[in-house]
């Protein structure tokens, strides 16, 4: 992970609040993103993800709280600050009659130190579409164009708001490769998504937001704490389902193997990020990460 701005965080948020009428969309949210880090904000629809991101982008004014993005308050930051951020909005449908090449070149002229438009077009994989108008692009290609326009200004920080919604799996995978290539450039990325696989694949750190608050955060591998990640060994004994939560499922299975000739209905279940996430959303009272729909590990 490269940090381009020393140790100063790219994003600092403390106690952020935003209310729309009766609805408290953001309710005391805290968030830190280090320079060069890729952070994914996960949460159900209506959790306050987009509101939070749009406050950070300078589109919306907050009711309360402390916000610094690249060292400035987005509410009052000027053009020089905008030149250092890249915004990829959720589902826009504009720019229909201009071609990919025209658009990337046109937007590059807004910035003091843009990337080479041709390099950007290559990087997002739209080389063969350079003369094609935005209207004729597929959903995935359009999103790549959105990213091209978001990064052509050589931003230090890129916001990606639900970038792969509506993609087919193949388009999603190649989009992830594109984001990975930004990481190697040292660009800080704040990503919102409701695809857990996407967060797991891309993010250094995952922040789970529900009801306008952060309910958990951590790397994709230890989100929810160690307990939530324990394997569950399940089998049938004396006509009843038995299960053991353990850090050492192999040993448990070995012990079982010693007692049975063939362990009846043996299963080893690992909670996926999705199980952990759903557990987190269900609230702190239920034990997180109950492997309701977990992947099964084949036993030898």
């Amino acid at each position, binding site marked *: 992970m490269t940090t*381009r*701005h020393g140790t100063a965080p790219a994003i600092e948020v403390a106690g952020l609040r935003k209310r*729309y009428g009766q609805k408290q969309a953001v309710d005391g949210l805290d968030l830190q993103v280090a320079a060069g880090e890729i952070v994914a904000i996960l949460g159900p629809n209506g959790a306050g993800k987009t*509101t939070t991101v*749009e406050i950070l*982008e*300078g*589109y*919306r004014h907050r009711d309360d709280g402390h916000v610094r993005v690249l060292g400035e308050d987005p509410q009052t930051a000027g*053009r*020089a600050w*905008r*030149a*250092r*951020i890249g*915004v990829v*909005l959720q*589902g*826009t*449908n*504009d*720019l*229909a*009659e*201009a071609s990919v090449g*025209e658009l990337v070149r*046109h*937007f590059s*002229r*807004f*910035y*003091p*130190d843009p*990337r080479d438009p041709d*390099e*950007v077009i290559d*990087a997002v994989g739209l080389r063969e579409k350079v003369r094609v*108008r935005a209207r004729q692009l597929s959903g995935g290609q359009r999103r790549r164009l959105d990213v091209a*326009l978001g990064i052509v*200004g*050589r931003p*230090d920080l890129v916001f990606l708001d639900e970038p792969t919604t509506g993609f087919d799996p193949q388009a999603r995978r190649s989009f992830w490769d594109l984001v990975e*290539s*930004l990481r190697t*450039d*040292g660009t800080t990325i704040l990503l919102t998504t409701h695809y857990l696989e996407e967060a797991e694949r891309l993010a250094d750190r995952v922040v789970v937001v529900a009801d306008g608050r952060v309910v958990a955060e951590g790397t994709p591998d230890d989100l929810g704490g160690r307990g939530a990640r324990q394997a569950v060994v399940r089998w049938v004994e004396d006509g009843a389902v038995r299960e053991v939560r353990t850090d050492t499922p192999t040993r448990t299975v070995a012990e079982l193997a010693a007692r049975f000739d063939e362990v009846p209905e043996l299963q080893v279940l690992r909670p996926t990020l999705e199980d952990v996430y759903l557990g987190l959303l269900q609230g702190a009272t239920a034990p997180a990460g109950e492997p309701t729909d977990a992947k099964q590990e084949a036993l030898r």
Partner: protein
Amino acid sequence: MTTTTAPTTATARRLPGPLALGLERARYEVRVFFRERDAVVFIFAYPVIMMGIFAAVFGQDGATVPAGDVEIPFAQYFLPGMIATGVMLSSFQALAIAISVERDEGGLKRLRGTPLPASAFFVGKIGQVLGTGLAQTAILLVFAATAFDVPMPSDVSTWATFAWVYLLGTAAGAVCGVAFSSVPRSGRSASAVVTPIVLILQFISGVFFAWDSLPSWMQQVASVFPLRWLVEGMQAVFLPPQVTGDAELVTTALVLGAWLVGGLVVGARSFRWRRRDDG
């Protein structure tokens, strides 16, 4: 992609100036305008088509319109109204619809997320309106002069009148278009909301009929709006001097000026980069 420039030098580099960006925007807007087929037909070609139809239908066998104490050939009588209509279409109608659609589709919001200054956005719009409007008027004038033998003014002072009426009308139409772009509830409904307004104004402002033949209440209603005075100003340029006096030209300047100022005030207050339902 490689990052070859250190961020310190990146931010130290100067941001592009608003005027240069405005010209860049204008180039882009004009190029894209001519790719929107329905906009080109309804905004750009409409006055020329209407001019051709009206002059051909009503001007058969050398028919004339009585205006004041002179008789004027139909084509010549209609030309000022068609120029005025063209100004309204390329400024008011084009901007009201285009900005409404761009707002609805998220294009304005996207621009707001870049370092493009608002001034450059509007300079671009003005450039597009002037570019398309002047081209449209030029085609109309050449068409009227060659196909219908409408006499063109030959002295500089008349063309000077043309210039200020044209620019003031375009400016008033443009700012009112920006202000009005917030009225349609969606981009889809924009042209259904905007087009009838311009069409009704054309009928009551004497574009399609001789002004003197309109009922007086209709004349009074039309006199509140800019199109009637834009027609009046253009008549001073293209009709014999008996038809429009200096008093009407002063009123033209005052009414168009008032709409310009009013449109600026309302437009500056009501302009939004985001959709109404977008928080």
